[in-house]
């Protein structure tokens, strides 16, 4: 059976702030059920790349290691997952691979693996954000019965949470995307990015995606687990981690 991703980051890397063009690109290549079909054919993608220095795969592995060891968002999520019985093992639960299109990563619920698109993640900050985003999906998978493939509202909820809590919709990132807005713009961004992510991994219409996001938004936007708050930057994430460690 074809491997399909439960959730994905449907965005262009930060240094190419294409704004509306990025969305256009995603819509033009809208074959979400086949986005990751090349995963099966690749087998173990690391073979053949290790012969050259600074290959995309090596860069991806190195950036991932740094993220796992130092980023406060990720460290909190790793702790929370361990607490929920899903301890994360880098070699088992992460895979750096080439992906088609502009997608940065995805969570594969059928193999319990986070895929990082090594050809689309070019800097450490982006890696931090992708790993955070996908770990939020993994965390949801671990703590709840999420019907990734059969219930678009479940998918929408996890995408709302991931866009809300990973820093995807920070003011700075939105400015880089040439999306200017201040008052409550964060919520607009979360809605829009959740819809884009759904469209990237499911063969549904924009109307269906939008309706699902609208129906779950109130609940899922206010579900801040495991952070307990919206972590606007690393300071908030560190405070949240401290609170998580003390919550008992």
């Amino acid at each position, binding site marked *: 059976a074809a491997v399909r991703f439960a959730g994905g980051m449907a965005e262009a890397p930060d240094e190419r702030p294409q704004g509306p063009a990025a969305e256009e690109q995603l819509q033009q290549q809208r074959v979400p059920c086949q986005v990751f079909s090349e995963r099966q054919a690749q087998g*173990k993608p690391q073979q053949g790349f290790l012969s050259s220095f600074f290959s995309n795969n090596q860069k991806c592995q190195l950036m991932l290691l740094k993220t796992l060891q130092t980023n406060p968002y990720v460290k909190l999520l790793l702790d929370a997952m361990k607490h929920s019985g899903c301890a994360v093992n880098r070699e088992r639960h992460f895979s750096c691979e080439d992906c088609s299109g502009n997608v940065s990563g995805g969570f594969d619920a059928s*193999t319990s693996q986070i895929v990082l698109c090594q050809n689309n993640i070019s800097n450490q900050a982006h890696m931090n954000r992708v790993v955070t985003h996908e770990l939020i999906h993994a965390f949801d998978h*671990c703590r709840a019965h999420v019907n990734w493939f059969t219930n678009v509202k479940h998918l929408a909820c996890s995408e709302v949470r991931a866009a809300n809590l990973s820093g995807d919709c920070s*003011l700075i990132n939105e400015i880089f995307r040439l999306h200017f807005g201040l*008052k*409550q713009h964060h919520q607009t961004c979360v809605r829009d990015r959740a819809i884009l992510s759904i469209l990237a991994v499911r063969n549904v219409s924009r109307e269906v995606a939008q309706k699902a996001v609208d129906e779950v938004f109130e*609940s899922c936007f206010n579900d801040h687990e495991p952070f307990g708050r*919206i972590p606007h930057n690393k300071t908030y994430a560190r*405070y949240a981690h401290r609170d998580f460690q003390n919550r008992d």
Partner: protein
Amino acid sequence: MADGGGWRPPRPCEAYRAEWKLCRSAGHFLHHYYVHGERPTCEQWRRDLMSCRDWEERRSADAQRSLCESERARVQAAQKHALVWTPRQSPPTDWHLPLLQEEKDE
């Protein structure tokens, strides 16, 4: 959180001070307005900090009660949204299983 016997505040007083300071910062004002479209309210953190100090100095029962109620309210506020999905009683059984490809290769 019963009587004052072995009880201590839910957070160290320094944590309440740090949260109050963060809440009042210009950066937080900006973030809060960006998310909620209104200014933040930081009064509860200030009250909690005062209660915490009160407890440390005088072991005040009022301070203990106030802190407990405040934390309870925070927990309730975080849980008041209706869940979209059913929580699990145990983690997914296949989370730690080896990948099928790896098994084939071995």
